[in-house]
Each structure stands twice: as structure tokens, then as C-alpha cells.
């Protein structure tokens, strides 16, 4: 039995376990070493993922298969984990959180996401999703002394368990109709002659989509997101806004995209998703207009972005989807790292008023944050623009011009609230006393890398595009 496909995943799990063990033995002043352990395990895992590129490794009878798309996404998770750990090094000390559990849960969450994207079996995907979710519930409540954090954890847990229940029920129905739990098998049944996939099967598929829709915050399953985002520790919020989305969209794409390839008549599910996409873009952006708390604002913005990404799924264009996800990783991680930067011992500045006038007080943080916001708003020459360009143009090519018009109008709304943050940073005088800790090199490194990513992907995405085309070509 060939375990090479398992090695990168094992690196993370071993790292997580080691963190938990070491926590017990390390003296209190050396607790920050645990972060380095997590970093090492991430680097090792990344190394093995890169080595497995193009080899199509698999193990457990194919239940874990590293095709190229899986490798690209897993590397994205490794990068996300790297950013999150670096962001947290000082943050968790200042916010009085436990090191060992924190890093361990973070690594577990990532490994869950990796399982999700690298399995062709929907039940294993569900397993990964649960690993990711359970770790996330705990992570949301890591700020023990903050009632908001506990509230977030409880909310996320309750809603999340409902969603998981729907998902399992849906899977059961789908299994009944398709007699298979392999994604390929389900797809074959879906695309088979009419009637073979009965109404029960379609209802099951709808429930599955609802379950995933919860995790990736599609309207109308988005209600939890703003509260949880606001309450959770900021790096964890960054995790919520990035990792489940990447994983969830990848699974949805694998499962659904072939259904509407090749100009076949669109199934009802497609129209359902059409409506969901339009709603998600509209509601996410409109609700964001009224937010004064930046974490909530970014929560609604990430809901809106789910809508744009769903467009790529609807267009059945994997390359556009992957590019958007990678670009989204960089810009969102960057934006959240700027929020993490705006903290000091026991205090987080997340209100819009706190940001007034920081443009000239903390020029580098503000300038980077502004660039991330421009990217989220889709201004060229940033990654956000190119990502939107690909997704929207793919959708238009599939004859979806009306939906794209909705999308661009929605992103016009988004321009307003992103720019309003910049208005506060640069065009208003300070309104509140803001005093942040500026000695955090690791965090600045994250911001710098994300900045490079956002600009490079916006101006010269050449190599990534090549990789992505190969990755997408590998899956069908």
C-alpha cells in the first residue's frame, strides 16, 4: 500500500499532535515555540505537496487522490495556514489565548479542508468537512474571556450542526438515487437518462448544496457569518473567510460543473443556483453598506464574494474559479492581517471610527490595507480585478450576460463601502485615540507577501495561469 499521498497530510496532523503534547511540557515563557512547530509542519507539508505535483498519487483504494487540482488547493491551504500562524504569533499572546490548542486546532482545520478537496468520495469529503467544522467551532471560542467569542462559538456550532445534518440527510438521499458515493458515480447518475435520478435524488442534491452553502456562506444560509466573524479572534475569522470557501467551492465545482457543460439544457438545480448567486451578491453587498464594524463589513464582503465565485461554478469554468480562489486567498488574508495589525494588548480596533486618520499615522499598514480593499473592490491592476475579469468573462461566454450585469452592479455597490473605509483612513482626521503595537515583524511579513501576491497576480499572473490550466485539465 502506497502511503505517499498521505504524507503531506500526516505532516500537519503530527505537527498538531506535537503542539498539544509540547504544550504540557514547555515552560510558560517558551510557549511561542509552539507556533514555530506549526510553521515547520506546514512547510514540510507544502514541500511534499509540491513533490506530488503531476504524480496523481492516491491511497486507501483511491479515497485520497492527489490530482493536480487537489494539489493546487492544498498548497493554497498550506499558504493560508502559514499566513494564519504568522498572524497569530503575537496576537494570541496579547489576547491571552492558549497556544497549544490554538495551533493544533488550526492545523486540524487545515487538514480537514485538505481531505475535502482531495477525495473523490463524497462521504470522505463529509468527513473532512466535519474535521474542519469541529475545529472551527472550537477556534471561534478561543478568546475565553470575551463573551462575544463564546457567543460566536455557540452560534457557529448550533447552525453548523444543522447544516451538517442536512448535508448527511442529503447524502443519504443521493446515495439512494445514484447507488454510489463516488463523485464520479453521482455525476454519471445525474447525467444519465432522464428519470434514473428520481425526485428524491434531486431533493437530496438540493440538501447537499444547502449544506455546503452554509459553509461557504451563500444567501440564504449566511445569517451566521457576520456574528461569528465579529466574535471570533481575528486570525480565526480570516480562516473562516478563506479555508471553508476554497474547499467548499472546489467540491461543488467537481460535483456540479460537468452537469451543464457542452450546452445541454440546464437542470433545475442550475436555475436554483442562479438565483442563489444573484441573491448572494445583492444581499452581501447591500448589507455591507450599513456596517461600521470592519469585521462585519468584511464578513458581508466575503458573502458577496461567494456570489461572484458561484458565477464561476455556474459558468463551469474551473480555471476562472481556481484563479479567483487564489486571488481571494491573498486579498482576504491581507485585509485581515491589516485588521490584526490594528491591535494592542487586550484591545482590538475594528470600528470604522478607529480607522479615521490612520493613513498618515501608520502609512504602511494603511497603504497595504487600501490596496487590499481596492483589490476586493476589483480595481485594476490588482488580483481582484483580473479574478473578476476571468469569472465574468467566462460567464458571458456561456451566455450569462444578465447575471453578469447583476454582478457588476453589485460590485459597484461594493466599491462604495470599500472606498468608505479608505475615506476614513485618508480623508478624515482621527476620531478616536488609537495606539497600536507596532513591533510585529511576522505580521508585516504576511502583509508583504499578500501585497506581492495581490499585485503580481494582477499584473503578471502568467505562471499561475499555466498551473491552473493544467490543474483543471486533470480533473475531468
Amino acid at each position: 500500500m502506497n502511503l505517499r499521498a498521505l504524507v503531506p497530510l500526516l505532516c500537519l496532523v503530527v505537527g498538531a499532535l506535537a503542539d498539544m503534547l509540547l504544550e504540557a511540557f514547555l515552560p510558560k515563557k517558551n510557549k511561542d515555540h509552539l507556533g514555530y512547530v506549526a510553521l515547520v509542519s506546514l512547510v514540510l507539508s507544502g514541500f511534499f505537496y509540491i513533490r506530488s505535483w503531476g504524480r496523481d498519487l492516491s491511497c486507501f483504494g483511491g479515497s485520497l487522490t492527489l490530482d493536480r487540482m487537489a494539489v493546487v488547493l492544498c498548497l493554497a491551504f498550506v499558504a493560508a495556514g502559514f499566513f494564519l500562524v504568522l498572524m497569530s504569533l503575537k496576537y494570541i499572546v496579547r489576547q491571552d489565548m492558549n497556544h497549544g490548542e490554538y495551533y493544533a486546532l488550526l492545523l486540524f482545520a487545515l487538514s480537514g479542508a485538505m481531505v475535502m478537496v482531495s477525495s473523490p468520495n463524497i462521504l470522505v469529503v463529509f468527513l473532512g468537512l466535519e474535521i474542519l467544522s469541529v475545529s472551527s467551532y472550537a477556534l471561534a471560542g478561543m478568546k475565553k474571556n470575551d463573551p462575544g467569542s463564546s457567543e460566536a462559538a455557540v452560534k457557529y456550532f448550533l447552525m453548523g450542526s444543522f447544516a451538517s445534518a442536512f448535508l448527511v440527510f442529503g447524502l443519504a438521499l443521493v446515495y439512494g438515487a445514484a447507488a454510489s458515493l463516488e463523485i464520479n458515480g453521482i455525476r454519471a447518475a445525474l447525467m444519465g437518462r432522464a428519470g434514473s435520478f428520481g425526485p428524491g435524488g434531486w431533493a437530496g442534491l438540493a440538501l447537499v448544496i444547502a449544506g455546503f452553502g452554509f459553509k461557504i456562506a451563500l444567501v440564504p444560509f449566511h445569517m451566521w457569518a457576520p456574528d461569528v466573524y465579529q466574535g471570533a479572534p481575528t486570525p480565526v475569522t480570516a480562516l473562516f473567510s478563506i479555508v471553508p470557501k476554497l474547499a467548499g467551492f472546489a467540491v461543488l465545482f467537481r460535483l456540479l460543473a460537468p452537469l451543464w457543460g457542452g450546452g445541454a439544457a440546464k437542470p433545475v438545480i442550475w436555475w436554483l443556483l442562479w438565483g442563489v448567486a444573484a441573491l448572494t451578491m445583492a444581499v452581501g453587498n447591500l448589507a455591507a453598506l450599513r456596517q461600521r464594524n470592519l469585521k462585519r463589513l468584511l464578513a458581508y464582503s466575503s458573502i458577496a464574494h461567494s456570489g461572484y465565485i458561484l458565477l464561476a461554478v455556474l459558468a463551469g469554468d474551473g480555471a476562472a474559479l481556481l484563479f479567483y480562489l487564489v486571488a481571494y486567498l491573498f486579498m482576504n488574508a491581507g485585509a485581515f492581517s491589516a485588521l490584526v495589525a490594528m491591535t494592542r494588548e487586550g484591545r482590538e480596533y475594528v470600528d470604522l471610527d478607529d480607522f479615521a486618520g490612520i493613513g498618515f499615522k501608520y502609512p504602511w499598514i494603511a497603504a497595504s490595507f487600501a490596496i487590499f480593499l481596492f483589490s476586493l473592490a476589483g480595481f485594476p491592476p490588482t488580483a481582484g480585478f483580473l479574478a473578476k475579469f476571468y469569472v465574468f468573462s467566462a460567464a458571458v461566454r456561456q451566455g450569462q450576460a444578465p447575471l453578469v450585469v447583476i454582478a457588476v452592479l453589485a460590485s459597484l455597490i461594493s466599491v462604495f463601502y470599500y472606498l468608505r473605509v479608505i475615506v476614513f483612513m485618508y480623508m478624515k482626521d482621527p476620531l478616536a485615540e488609537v495606539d497600536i503595537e507596532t513591533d510585529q515583524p511576522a505580521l508585516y511579513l504576511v502583509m508583504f507577501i499578500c501585497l506581492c501576491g495581490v499585485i503580481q497576480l494582477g499584473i503578471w499572473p502568467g505562471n499561475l495561469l499555466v498551473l491552473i490550466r493544467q490543474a483543471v485539465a486533470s480533473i475531468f
Partner: protein
Amino acid sequence: MPLLSLLTFLPLAGGLVLIFFPRERTREARAFALAVALAVFLVSLAVYFGFEAGSGAAQFVERGRWIGYGLDYHIGIDGISLFLVLLTTFLTPIALLSSWKAVDGRLKEFSFFMLLLETGIIGVFVSMNLFLFYVFWEAMLIPMYFLIGIWGGQRRIYATLKFVLFTMFGSLLMLVAIFVLYARYHQATGGQSLAFQDLYGLSLPPGLQTWLFLAFALAFAIKVPLFPLHTWLPDAHVEAPTAGSVILAAVLLKMGAYGFLRLGLPLFPDAARTFLPELSVLAVIGIIYGGFMALAQKDMKSLVAYSSVSHMGLIMLALFSLNIESTEGALYQMLNHGLSTGALFLCVGILYERSHTRLIKDHGGLSRQMPVFSAVFLVATLSSMGLPGLNGFVGEILCFFGIFAANKVLAALAVSTAILSAAYLLWLFGRVMHGPILDPKILDFEDMNRRERLVLGPVVVLMFWLGLFPGTVLRKMDASVTKYLHTVRQKVEVQEKTAGLSLSLSSRDGSVKRFKSHFEGGHE
């Protein structure tokens, strides 16, 4: 040497270096920014002298693979864009120099955004690929947003958000149209391209053309701005700092007209022809409405802003008349409007630095106190009115020739611009410069200092030059304009087989040649 790339990206590079100047080194920073802008101007002069007049095709073409899938790096310059680029590179150092005193804090950041803006604008004018064009078109919003928002007046935040959102609204719909073109080209040829010349060759069904044209036209009409879409302009102009107003009025508005010229009309000639009457009427309404609004303004800056609406209306009307006189006249008038409106904004800025008010009623009798300034202001005013001997005259007369040939009724209405602009400008001049000195503060005003003379001197010289020797410009424009009109008409004629546009190109050609040889004779 890739001269055009150098021209486009030199300001950006200079700006990036500029950020790293230490905060306290203001003098060095501003000198460096000015030096960069002057260097850019020199490069653009090299382009001008290297430009061959006889050819209508794009010159200095650079083309390279960029992102792939038809999204290439493809730039070039022709007789249409050449002078708009020159106008940009000419006015940027002037605008920078003019703000040395007006912008007291954060001059480094200010200059950085000005240079960024210059790259964006030049990029728009030299792009030969629709994707590249759009990237510059949008990217240019960011520096303008900061310039108005940080260094603007009282209602700057409202003005800057309005400016960005208005412009984005149009350009996002244009983006959808670009996607459709991109997909259509792929369908038609199997390849992928967004190069202008490839898209010109694309034949589109009329129904689709209508939608696409409307999307493009909306984006450009907002930028120009055409009549009902102009409401962002007075706000942005009034609130922007002087340098911002200058660039906004002189160059940014021209991007809209340029868009019609380069994309809107030649890409969708059928649809364009269907909508030309409506658009022309809007342009005429803009001329008259802008003129009357200017008459009613109490604030000097908003007066000049509304005069822009009026003058841009004339330019658009000339563009929509689609003959060689009107098109060249429109292009020429774009330069004139850039110079004269730029100069007027600079003058208002100079006054504002002294009196800290822009209201007309707070001034009066300045000509005794500031004779040199008053003379310069007069030249700018007269140039804007179109007095013979100054640049405005040549442009206006060409425009009117062309418009008369196309539609006599609209032309008759459009001529009112001459009367209206004389009215509001001379009245402005009279109220500000003549009469008794009401406010004793004015007695302390000093005349223009050396820096201010350096700012306005070159503009005044150029106004006379363009008024007396229009051949320098028209000669290099000719071939490209002829080619452009061919592109617009040929497609229509091929598809419709009717002489839809009443004028044949050749017969009008002769008259404009005679007209020009008359002018060129003057200086040869």
C-alpha cells in the same frame, strides 16, 4: 528603444521612487517630482518629432504577450492620440509646479498621485488593446480619488465618491460589453483577441450592436460628460485642488471624447448612426444648458466647470457630425479646451491662494493691483471664447464648418456657444478685474510671482502658437483622421450599401486642405 513604454511608465517609476523620500525632505521631493514630469515631457517631444505625418496607422507600436488569451500588451500612437498625450505631458509639470504653495501638507504624496495619474492617462491614450485600455481607464480612478478626497475642499468626500461611483457605473457596464466582444470574437474566428484592429473587423448583428454601443456610450458619455450625466462634474471640479481640476478638465474629460472616437463609433458604426441624432441633440442641450448655468454661477470654479460642460458639448457635437472638418476641429478643440480651461483653473487657483475665496463678489478691481495676472487672465478668457489669433478660434471655426455641413439646425443652435461663452467669460472678467476695489484686503495682493509666471507663461505662449500656426498640429492629425472616418463609414456603407452619410469624403477633403494651406501659409 521602446519610447512609448518609457513615456507611459516613467511617471509611475518616478512616483515609486518618490515615496521613499524622507518626510522632511519636501524641497527635494517636489523638485524630483517636477524633474520626472519634465523628463516625461521631453520623451513625449521625442515622440512628437519622431512621428511621421503621412501615415494614418499607429506608430511606435509595441506588442508583446502579456497575460495571454488575447490580453496582450499592445501600445501605439497615432495622429489622434499623439496630441492628447502631449497635452497630458505638457500640463502635468505645470500642474505640479502650480501646487507647490497651494498644497501645504503632504506634497510628496500629492506628487506621487499626480504622477500615477499621468501614467494612467497616457496609458489610456496609447493602448491598442481593449483590455489594456480598460485597465488604465479604471486604474486612473484611484489617484484621482485620492487627489480630490485628500486635498480637496469642504465637500471633498462627497465629490470624490460621486466621481468614482458615476465613472465606475459606466465603465462596469462597458466591461460587460467588453466580455461580449471578447466572446463574439472567439465565436467568429476561434482565436482570442481584444486588439482594436481585430475588433474593428468584427461584424456584429445590429441588435447586439445597439446594446454594446449603449454600454460603451454610457461609459464615455459620463466621462465627457454629456448633458444629463454631467452632475458629477461641477462637484468634482469645485472640490478638487487646483492641479486636480486642471488635469480633470484638461485631460480626463477628453478621455470620454477619445473613447467615442477610438471605440464607440468605429466599433459599432450601425448602432452609432442610429443614435447619432439623439446624441447630437444631447450635445446641443449641453452647450446651451452649460452656458446658462455658467452665467448663473457665483463661484468662479463652478463657472469654469459649467463652461466645460458647454464646450465639451460643442466638441461632442462636432465629433458626431462625422466629417473631416468637424473631426479635426473636435480634436483641435480638445487641445484648446485643455489649455484654456486649464489656464482658467490655474488663474482661479492663484486668486484663491491670495483671497481664500472663490466667490466672484468678493473680488473686484484686481487689474490695478495685479496687472500681469490680469493680462494672463484676459488671454485665457479670450482663448476660451475663441477670439481670432488665439487657439480657440481655429478649433471652433473648424467645428462649425463641419457641423453646418452635417446639420444646419443643430449648427445654428450650437453657434450660441460663441455668444454665451463671451457673455459669461467677459462678465466674469469684468466683475473680478474691473470696478472699484471693494475689499481692502485686495490692496495687499501681490502680482504673480516668478513661479506663477513659469506656470502660466508656457500655456499662454502655446495659446498664441496654436492660434497662429495650427498647421503644426493639423498636419500630423490628417492621415489618422481620414483613416478613422474611413473605418467608420466603410463598415456602414459595406453593410447598408447606401450613402447614409450625406457627404462623400473626397469632396469635403479639398476644402479643408485649402483652409489649412491658408493657415500654414501664414508661418511658412
